[in-house]
């Protein structure tokens, strides 16, 4: 009887286990920048409203150097309009942005998205479809993606700004969807620049 129950459970668990596949569109050439390394000063492109730009302390026309963002920590989310995991993660990312504000962290921690291989039009489709509340940049020619290690999507970089040394340091990385918004923000706070 015990043996029968064990095999029954195993049969149920096997397909469940396969459902645990990583929720990301993986990139065969991915070589993410490791934690502790320096992030290049990305030249962010995109049509962003002046109001959203102002939340990052930016103004004027593209390109916007990453180092010009007024923040202690930046959460950079590499996404694609074409990536189903990113489509499903979009509401959670809005929640993350809202939670940063609710917790009063929005002065120090800023969140941006970069649409990997996405034109301004495609980024705008994503922005409007999911009523995205944080700034989204475009990367039609994969220039940013090459600089950040040809990562899959969604990919999360937590970046700490070091204005003294004019450096941006990788503090945390995550491929695939967040397990929980609160849990992820806790991790970000733990590694963020104080």
């Amino acid at each position, binding site marked *: 009887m015990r043996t029968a129950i064990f095999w029954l459970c195993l049969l149920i668990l096997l397909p469940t286990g396969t459902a645990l596949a990583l929720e990301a569109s993986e990139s065969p050439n991915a070589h993410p920048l490791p934690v502790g390394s320096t992030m290049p000063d990305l030249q962010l492109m995109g049509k962003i409203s002046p109001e959203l730009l102002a939340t990052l302390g930016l103004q004027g026309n593209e390109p916007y150097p990453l180092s010009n963002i007024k923040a202690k920590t930046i959460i950079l989310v590499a996404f694609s309009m074409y*990536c189903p995991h990113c489509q499903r993660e979009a509401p959670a990312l809005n929640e993350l942005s809202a939670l940063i504000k609710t917790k009063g962290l929005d002065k120090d921690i800023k969140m941006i998205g970069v649409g990997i291989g996405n034109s301004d039009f495609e980024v705008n489709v994503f922005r409007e479809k999911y009523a995205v509340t944080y700034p989204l940049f475009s990367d039609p020619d994969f220039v940013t993606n090459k600089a950040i290690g040809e990562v899959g999507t969604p990919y999360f970089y937590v970046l700490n700004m070091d204005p003294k040394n004019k450096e941006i340091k990788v503090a945390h990385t995550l491929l695939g969807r967040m397990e929980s918004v609160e849990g992820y923000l806790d991790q970000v706070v733990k590694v963020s620049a104080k």
Partner: protein
Amino acid sequence: MNQTVRFCLISLLLMMPAHVFAQGPSIPKERIFQVGTLKALDSTLKVKVGDPAPDFSLPTVDGKHLSLSQFKGKKNVVLSFVPAAWTPVCSGQWPGYNIVQDMFEQAETQLIGVTVDNVPTLHAWIQEMGGVWFPVASDFYPHGKLAGALGILRSTGEAERSLFLIDKQGIIRYIDVHDINSRPDLGPLIKAMQALK
């Protein structure tokens, strides 16, 4: 409760949320065939904007047949050819169209996905993708007949990655035969669709 039963029940409880959340489109990397970089274009287009589109009758993954003539006078048609199932860019292109169904509907345009793969292959691929809202048609037999008529059949038997917008009168109004290695920008296609209204 003996230990085996307890272990199984606890495991099931722990695994359940992951099982629930993992529903939906997801093609693991190992199931995608890596093609490397291919010759950007490998065919000679036989039609141009302003030409009547060749009619076709192709089987679809839902067991029907689609022809261009059935849309005449009713809807514009976009044919989205991708080179092959289970390849990287192709597996990324159509899931993006899943979030712009409203744009196609507003422009009174029927999107049809086409490849030269056979129906069972397309069925498995689309299922693995998590499904798409638009019909997917097979130009498998006679092999690449429609692709050949349009002049987008490559020497290796695949179709070019291409988009054709055909108006309600059956006239081709927009063509994008794209570098096979990259995804066409959605913007120009949507603008061309909206200009037809």
